[in-house]
């Protein structure tokens, strides 16, 4: 996958400190939140560590959608198409499918712009949550150290 310029910028921006937005109310209805929860858990499921919805990803995305009507509209129309696909293939909305059915459907659809949008938001929200960053990845930074040891592996030296 060749990244577009926008994606390259998004990638770069993601390395910067999180840029806090203004506090936003939620925008999604309860059924929409249910669909979003199913989708983000398909992207990052619960394993031996928490999954996306365990980490509060749906609420985080809801706040982001609330900040941008355009983004919310993209989400709603994308979710509608995903649900329509789910119904025609398995006879039920995406959130009502079994995990293997969800995987099958998402694999068949490929990483379309809607999926990429939700995946990007899920990645940002999950890997900055306590569950995703500290528990899953093992980050234990931003602390107070009297000394920084750096690399102590003799095999990494020149």
């Amino acid at each position: 996958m060749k990244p577009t310029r926008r994606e390259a910028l998004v990638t770069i921006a993601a390395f910067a400190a999180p840029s806090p937005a203004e506090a936003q109310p939620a925008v999604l209805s309860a059924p929409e939140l249910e669909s979003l929860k199913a989708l983000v858990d398909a992207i990052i499921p619960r394993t031996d560590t928490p999954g996306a919805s365990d980490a509060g990803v749906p609420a985080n995305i809801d706040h982001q959608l609330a900040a941008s009507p355009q983004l919310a509209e993209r989400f709603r129309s994308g979710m509608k198409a995903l649900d329509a696909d789910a119904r025609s293939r398995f006879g039920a909305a995406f959130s009502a499918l079994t995990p293997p059915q969800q995987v099958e459907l998402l694999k068949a659809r490929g990483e379309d712009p809607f999926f990429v949008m939700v995946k990007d938001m899920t990645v940002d929200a999950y890997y900055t949550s306590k569950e995703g960053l500290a528990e899953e990845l093992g980050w234990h930074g931003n602390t107070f150290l009297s000394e920084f040891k750096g690399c102590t592996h003799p095999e990494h030296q020149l």
Partner: protein
Amino acid sequence: MQTRKSPEVHDIVIVGSGASGGMAAWNLTQQGMRVLMLDAGAKFQRSQFWSHVKPWQVPQKIAAGQKPPEFYVDLKTAPYRTPPGQPFDLVRVWGRGGKTNIWGRVSLRYSDLDFASAERDGWEIPWPIRYKDIAPYYDKVDQLIGVCGGDDDQDSLPGSRYHLPPPAPRCGERLLQRAAHNIGIGIVAGRRAVLTQPHNGHAACHYCGACGKGCDVGAFFNSSDYLIEPALGSGRLQVIDNAVVARVLTDGEGRANGVQYFDRYTKQERRVRARVVVVAASCVDSTRILLNSKSRQHPNGIGNSSDAIGRYLSEQVRLHMFGFVPELLGAPVQNDDGIGGEHVYMPRFNHRDGRRRDYLRGFGMQFWGCGAGDAAGWAKQIPGFGAEFKTAVRKRYPALVALHPYGEVLPYAENRITVDSADVDGYGVPVARIEFQYRENERKMMTDMYQTAAAILKEAKAEILPYDPTFMGVPGQAIHEHSTCRMGADPKRSALNGFCQMHDVKNVFVVDGAAFTTASEKNPTLTILALAWRATDYLAAEMKAKRL
């Protein structure tokens, strides 16, 4: 609108409180001068910084209505224009210390490869100074602010006897250093204005890595704590907060006699009088002030008989490449915070024997972001989803390495800042219009930069994240604007002499990045500090000799 004029005539008024304004205030008050500083914002309170807010606490705090310090001035308060299809991201901090509150802290000495570049390749004008002129000031700056680094010394990156101990490299940095070494490219200890031990009364770094949010203990150089507070302590500095300077004022002979400014919030116009004006508002805003300072003697802006002011805007061109080194895939996660940003640096080497290039000037390389970070935005580029995706991300997380080459952009007369009397901001002052484009030389250099970064990653046997080798980046994002009021020996082709003094108007000094003759590939702040110190030594001597 009523204008308030202060009857007092100050010795010196300084416009701006960042690296250059802070240095000017510190040095001039040290020398017994009485100084007035105009700051477009106010002091940022260290106790309010979000240095130790964990990533997951950020949305919680925002939901609770809290806000981090507002370092960055918004575009409504401080608009600027760019032509369609030619973006320029201008980053500005209004407030005590300016961008030094959140700067990258990379502190590199320019060399005669930089100061004399035009003599060798014939592109535009050379600097009016050489390394020997500025070296004593680099020494003094290193000692004053505290710069950690190694004992290396080379033609493209002169050494310093005054470095504090450098922090140990992280694993990923070591592995890149080894790979680069194998293909003949030297990577040395980074040089950063971060205190690896207590220095001049300032606390040592505690390795939290959150420098970009402002340091809660002041363990890296910032103009407010390191320069302006001591200057205030001298009793000879007065600072006016929220003073947005619009113009340098002149007398009937065209000499500067003061400054016009607007209160940031009430928008009331005020004027102060001074014998000498030091402009230090950072490159673009200083240039805008000068271009707006029009009078009968200065129809194109003060000190601009050369038409050099506003022209030759030089940013730097850069790219970001990421990979995962095999030795660290699935390795135990370390605390990789360190001093925030890289602990190593690749000095320019493309000028050396045996290297061929089809462009002028050169590039160096930074490495911020190696190792376990406090986000994983790169995971968006890992394909797939589900448990496999999660595992793929976890395995790569400790193995991330990041390469950021920065290259010199040549000075072009057409890359310029202009003002238009019909297009004004909320204070009624004409805004800056920035026209900036990369050209053939930058495109060729970028090709070499991409190839060099990729070659290091390949030698390290790293998995390389997808990248677009034609992407030139967005101008302005290096936050290294230079050269729109450049110094030079010839008053017909430059605005300032080697002491940052205007050729046309002897009592105006421009001491920030605008004064640079070329941008070089290096981060400019250390050189800004050294030039401002040298310029204000000269200024003080000229005043004492009653030539100003």
